[in-house]
């Protein structure tokens, strides 16, 4: 592990505060919590990524991982994914769709747009914790992305 865990940045895009809390709690188990930024909709997610003034304490580096809910108010998760993957400066950021939807067509569309992983959130808490922490562990600590 080349860098301290503290410097790791995860962007969580989730409109449901309960789900957001459960997700953060799951990540907390692996001490990722300090570097998790939570935004409530797609528009906010994009303005965070493009460094608008709404987020003055945002670090210069882009996040290491984006956890994206499928169904979001304002800008939909799939639309956020499309914009990220269409942007040369952002497309290398791993995007994991965390969703309640197991619809085949959503899955197909997400992969067509270049999603890195697609996870159906388990209802059962133990499963959920296992899944989310697994995602964090793999994408943040195991997986490598090109430096930019």
């Amino acid at each position, binding site marked *: 592990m080349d860098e301290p865990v503290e410097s790791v940045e995860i962007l969580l895009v989730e409109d*449901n505060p*309960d*789900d957001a809390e*459960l997700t953060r*709690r799951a990540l907390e188990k692996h001490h990722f919590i300090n570097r998790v930024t939570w935004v409530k909709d797609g528009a906010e997610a994009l303005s965070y990524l493009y460094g608008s003034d709404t987020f003055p304490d945002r670090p210069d580096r882009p996040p290491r991982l984006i956890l994206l809910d*499928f*169904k979001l108010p304002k800008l939909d998760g799939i639309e956020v994914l499309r914009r990220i993957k269409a942007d040369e400066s952002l497309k290398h950021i791993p995007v994991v769709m965390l*969703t*309640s*939807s*197991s*619809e*085949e067509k959503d899955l197909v569309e997400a992969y067509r747009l270049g999603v890195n992983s697609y996870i159906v*959130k*388990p*209802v*059962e*808490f*133990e499963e*959920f914790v296992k899944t989310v922490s697994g995602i964090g562990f793999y994408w943040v600590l195991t997986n490598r992305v090109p430096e930019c």
Partner: protein
Amino acid sequence: MISLIPNPRRVSLLMIFLAIGILLWMGVVSLHFLESFLHESDRVEHSWMVLTSVDRLFSELQDAETGERGYIITRTTSFLSPYQSAVKEVRGHVQDLENIVSDRPGQKARAEKLGRLVNKRLSLLENGVALGEGVSPQNRVALLTVMVRGKEIMDQIRQVTQSMKSSEYLRLRRRSLQFFRTKKKVLPFVGSGLAASILMIGLSAVFLSREIDRRLQAEQKARQYGDEIRNLYDYAPCGYQSVDEKGTIIRINETELVWLGYQREEIEGIKSIFDLVSPEDQAGYREAFQGMLRGEPVRDLRLQFLRKDGSRLPVLLNASVIRGTSGKFMSTRGVLLDMTEKQKDEERILDLNRTLSERNVQLEVTNGELEGFSYSVSHDLRAPLRAIDGFSRILQEDYTGKLDAEGERVIGVIRSNTRKMSNLIDDLLAFSRMGKKAFSWSLVDMEALLHEILPGVLSGSERGYAVDVSLSALPEAWGDRTLLTQVWANLLANAVKFSEKSEKPTVWVEGETIEEDIVYTVRDNGVGFDMQYYDKLFKVFQRLHAQAEFPGTGVGLAIVQRVISRHGGRVWAESRPGEGASFHFSLPKRNGPAV
């Protein structure tokens, strides 16, 4: 008989001409004969005139002689009157006779001789009369001499007249012979000519009358045929009309007249075809009409015709131009079909189509709503469940020691219900997906499929290891492999679930072809069910057993039914409580991508 003669009319004509020829020839020949007859008869007449003249001359001379003698004997002058009149006439008659025979040298010579002898005789008679006035002996001698001399002359005259008469009689006799010969020639000639002419005219009359009979019969036949054709034309089940180059209707049949409600005299030669076409079809019809004049027939043109009362008659028109042998336009020939029923049918079909597409739209809307519904079920119902479960768990973790045993139990109940609801949602989604999934046909090897899924099914059950599965040979079938996998999995899981508590749990799987179907059966020796609840068996969320005894959501058999009916097959079952259950499903043998 008639057929043996190629052309009776020609034969008749030939015969008539032949007869006329014969008659003409006969006429010419007869004229010739007649002319020669006339000529002959002139000559005969001539001969008779000569004979008459000679006789008269001679008789006058005798009269004069008699008168002279009477005078000499009686010296009575009254005897001299015949003498005088004879003397007066006789010279003229001699001259006449000479004139008559002037063209015939023999007779002429005799006539001249006769003339001289008559002169001599007359002068002798004169002498005699003169001598007779004074009687003397010299006179007597002289008178006697004169008398003797007179007698001699008279004899000579008699001789000459006799010879003239003989010559004429000879001539007459020759003429008569000639005539007889000619008569013998002419009569047979005229007779046979007449007979031939009559025969030919008679024959030609026979031929002609036969020909006329034949023609009359042919005409009658033609009339009958014409009547038949006319009848067919008029009462055919379609309309016929013919128009001229300008579109004026020159012929129309009864059927069409009845359709349109017109009388014949209101249409033929009066109405234009364009008057019968509805305003909205005018442009199209005019174009087709012009095309037809250029030689492109009108084919299956749909038009609205106008009846006399103004109502519409939907028709199908086919028409073309009739041209004479020289290619000149003669008329058109149009055939109309009444499309009223067809149009009604089409309207009905259109109506049905409209209703159908409306229903389709409704169905699509409903489907869309259902999709939206299942989507929100999948997404929105799960999130709160996850929160309930998650926060119950957090409560357990963070408040260990602060909750008593009852609190722990209650949290357990909450969490187990969340799980059940989560299962219900999952099954419900699976069920809705079964109806939506796109079909992908293949020939499915059922035995291979079962070997594939059996381990999973058995391990998914608590006592699945104890269940004995007996697999028979299974025929293959056309279908969607993924969907059929779901069917087998659900049926097998049920069979295992309901039999695993039996003493010697067994599941039998069989398959056979029955007529047009392939029927598969899954049988178990489990708890079975009561057939009186059969109608609930395949309905979604309907269950025939207590949850505590046999857990389940009541979706499995509904999915089976849905998948099999999408394959065009059937699902049924039979059972008795405690005696196991048999579930059957059929797949049509002729299923496949082309069906």
